[in-house]
């Protein structure tokens, strides 16, 4: 594979598809989009197979470099972290196209073009090795998403599209200023070089905050998460899937690629604040999710809670936490995507997202109930499913640094079980009170084909996570080594007590002493 520009090809295929879709009729556009995304999926598999997971070779693989833009370059390359997120993207995209097959029937060509363009940009974000190229890809994603929400969204779509656009734009522009400063300081736009550059710790705080503004909004972290429920609720099903599945991961990717390795000291100093925000997010948004009457809103709030587990893992500064954060991102990408698809399935039939309008679907839609149960359990973090691995590792990582943060965030798992099981009970169990809901047909073959691959991936990740941990392990190790000098000390250090002289101490006292340690 040496020298073959597979990454550029992965971006060229959907780009060509997008242009073709603009000029094609509705049905042709659907097929063009499906074929383009499937070709990209195949390319993604080829990429994974050829990726050197041993960690013995270079960290950055499949690199391409073409200085065609003057001040910045078309510089691409991936490590294990990027590989996994690209795999997630190309895996979800054909499913998104399939989910829109019948649901979208006006302006199909433009819709498919927007999605394919989105795929180009997402792959671009994860492969860019040039700071400015990354920014351009990162920011350009606003355009197709704005159009997707605004044209094909729900009743309140215009408000949601503005809020999405302006919120994320405001977050990002400050990051751009910080990037300019860094490039002038370090004299390079190459991301790998910047990751190794040591910025002055005093300046790092400012740079960190500027990047944080962008990634925290994208992530989204409490209290700048408010755009997400609006965007999710109003977006069409596939838009929600890609938003929750991949776009939110750009925030996490930003932390792991930029904030942590480029500003380790600032990250360590501000880590308690990040833990604080994450703890609030886990508890607060879980409680909000508990009282939602709109299915999509409920899942949107659960996304915020899950993303807080990601940040808590990232800012644990150890291998378990970082790997856990990545696994939660991947797992959540699959599971929340699948949950939005599940919502979409019944929304397509009844055209309402009100939970109360459903009930007892396990009776007339048994296949649906089984798959929905699987994804509900995965979202709760049941062992054997993808999210368990990630959440467990994240919480294990944070436990080594802050037992309090671990304690509070773990309640999120319990609350998560509460709201998800409550949702499932109201939709699938109980009496069939609504006649129209009771008359809904079970999953069609197309819908099964959309959900089954995700179900398989969720189980694979839960049962044999090593397949997903192996590619990123060398990169996580390298990151941990980079962070080690700055990493905050844990609050549960084992201290050796001074032994009392034999015979003097009481037995009870010694026992109490031991407990305190």
């Amino acid at each position, binding site marked *: 594979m040496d020298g073959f520009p597979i990454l550029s090809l992965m971006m060229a295929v959907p780009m060509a598809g997008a242009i073709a879709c603009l000029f094609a009729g509705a049905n042709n556009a659907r097929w063009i989009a499906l074929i383009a995304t499937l070709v990209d999926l195949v390319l993604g598999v080829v990429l994974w197979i050829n990726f050197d997971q041993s960690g013995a070779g270079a960290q950055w693989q499949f690199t391409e470099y073409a200085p065609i*833009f*003057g001040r910045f370059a078309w510089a691409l390359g991936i490590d294990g972290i990027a590989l996994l997120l690209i795999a997630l993207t190309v895996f979800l995209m054909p499913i998104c196209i399939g989910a829109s097959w019948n649901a979208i029937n006006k302006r199909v060509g433009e819709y498919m073009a927007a999605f394919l363009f989105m795929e180009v940009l997402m792959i671009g974000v994860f492969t860019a090795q040039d700071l400015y190229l990354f920014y*351009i890809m990162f920011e350009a994603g606003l355009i197709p998403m704005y159009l997707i929400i*605004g044209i094909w969204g729900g009743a309140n779509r215009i408000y949601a599209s*503005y809020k999405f656009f*302006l919120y994320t734009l405001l977050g990002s*522009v400050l990051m751009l*200023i910080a990037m*300019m400063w860094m490039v002038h300081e370090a004299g390079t736009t190459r991301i790998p070089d910047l990751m190794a550059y040591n910025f002055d710790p005093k300046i790092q705080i400012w740079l960190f905050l500027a990047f944080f503004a962008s990634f925290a909004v994208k992530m989204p972290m409490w209290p700048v998460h408010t755009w997400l429920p609006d965007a999710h609720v109003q977006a069409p099903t596939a838009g929600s899937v890609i938003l929750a599945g991949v776009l939110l991961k750009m925030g996490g990717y930003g932390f792991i690629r930029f904030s942590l390795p480029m500003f380790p000291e600032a990250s360590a100093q501000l880590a308690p604040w990040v833990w604080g925000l994450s703890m609030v997010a886990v508890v607060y948004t879980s409680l909000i999710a508990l009282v939602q009457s709109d299915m999509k809103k409920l899942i949107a709030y659960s996304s915020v809670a899950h993303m807080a587990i990601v940040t808590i893992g990232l800012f644990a500064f150890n291998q378990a936490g970082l790997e856990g954060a990545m696994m939660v991102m991947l797992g959540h990408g699959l599971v929340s995507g699948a949950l939005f698809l599940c919502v979409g399935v019944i929304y397509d039939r009844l055209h309402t997202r009100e939970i109360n309008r459903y009930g007892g679907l396990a009776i007339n839609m048994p296949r649906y109930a089984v798959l929905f149960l699987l994804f509900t359990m995965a979202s709760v973090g049941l062992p054997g499913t993808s999210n368990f691995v990630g959440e467990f590792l994240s919480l294990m990582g944070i436990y080594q640094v802050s037992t309090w943060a671990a304690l509070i965030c773990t309640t999120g798992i319990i609350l998560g079980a509460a709201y998800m099981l409550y949702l499932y009970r109201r939709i699938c169990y109980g009496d069939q009170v609504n006649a129209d809901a009771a008359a809904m047909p079970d999953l069609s073959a197309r819908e099964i084909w959309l959900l089954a691959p995700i179900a398989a991936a969720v189980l694979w990740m839960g049962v044999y996570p090593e397949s997903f941990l192996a590619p990123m392990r060398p990169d996580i190790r390298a990151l941990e080594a980079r962070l080690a000098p700055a990493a905050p000390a844990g609050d549960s250090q084992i201290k050796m007590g001074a032994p009392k002289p034999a015979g003097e101490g009481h037995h009870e006292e010694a026992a109490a002493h031991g407990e305190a340690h």
Partner: protein
Amino acid sequence: MIETASLLAVLPELILTGSGLVLMLIAAFGGDRSTHAVNWLAVLALLAAGLSLCTSMAHGPVAFDGLVRADAFSVYAKALIYGAAGAAILLAPRFFAAGGALRPEYAVLIVFAAIGMGMMVSAGDMLTLYVGLEMNSLASYVLASFMRQDEKSSEAGLKYFVLGSLASGILLYGISLLYGFTGSTAFDGIAIAMGDGVSKGELFGLVFVLAGLAFKISAVPFHMWTPDVYEGAPTPVTAFFGSAPKVAAMGLMVRVAIEALGPAGLDWQQIIIFVALASILFGAVAAIGQTSIKRLMAYSSINNVGFALVGLAAGTPAGVAATMSYMAIYVVMTIGAFACILQMRDADGKPVDTIASLAGLSQSRKGLSAAFAIFMFSMAGIPPLFGFWAKFLVFDAAVAANLTALAAFGIAMSVIGAFYYLKIIKTIYFDEPAAPYEAKGGAVENIIMAACAIVIVFGYLLNPLLDKASAAAAASLF
């Protein structure tokens, strides 16, 4: 005694003057029937003048004992000016034909304005500057009221004339102060006199000169003429005002600030920073409530001028290069946007300019809507469109010059500006269709629109070229 080298250095102006006079005669004797011929001949004259730029630099950089410069900076600016002026001529006929004002004088006036603008950007002396400025302004006043039977157009011309004369007066007063305190009207003479410290009188002169020039680029707080003139003037004239004279005035501002007032850099830097931030903020906020797209473009131009000034505020060669790059990209966006706006005609071919009439355009005119969206996203500074790169360059220069706070404020306010550009896209793409437009646009309009859109989408490939040209232009000032 006039040297041949000096004459060759101003060859573009000579070509335009000669052809302008000839075209005037053709227009006088040919009447309205000659309009199309005059238009095309005027474009050819601009093209010839543009080609002659290649040779004029060889005879520079100083001509007529320093009254005129023929350096890389003037060549860069003139190339933009002639291009924009040519586009303004090509875009006009359909509009004027619909309004019953298809007259050959339009192209002639634009050619005369182009001569004035060329003199502005190549001035080496306050007096050349003033003559060039007035030449451009007089042609512009007439152009603004070109549809003389239209009340709004006449009003625009009158307003422009009254306020423009006031600004010229302020500028002249500043020039006289500078002359009185430095003993020179030549840019280099003023710079030498200011080299030993800036006296109170020189400072006053500087403030008045900058105020006069700020009027010409329509920067806050000297912007108040812009919305009325943009709205009242015939749309092709608005397209012209928004592009070529902006480049000329900005070039003039940059040249005066760097060449003549360079030693007083710290003094004018504060003024420029204030004017830049005020323009960005005001241009963004005031545009939000507009219902006419022409008025909106007026506020958008105020907003853009603010961004361009951020580069000048840096005061470095990189900053000047960034400002000039900004103007190049801005001109392409403006011409493209107006090529779209000129296609806003109802089913009977009558021009409309309300934003509401754009509703649901994407369902009937896909190409036009896509172009509109491209230009609006680009003006909002959203990558991967080229408008982002313009903003990037000026803010990058500001950051490099340690004006990080200015850059942070400016870019944060650009988010406010993004809102009203988004509003247009929302109207076109999200809203239910309003009364349909004319089914097809004119060929020339479509070609110019498509060409501009291609530059805006694939502009990053031009980066090496643009960097080189603007850096050379900036280097010739320092």
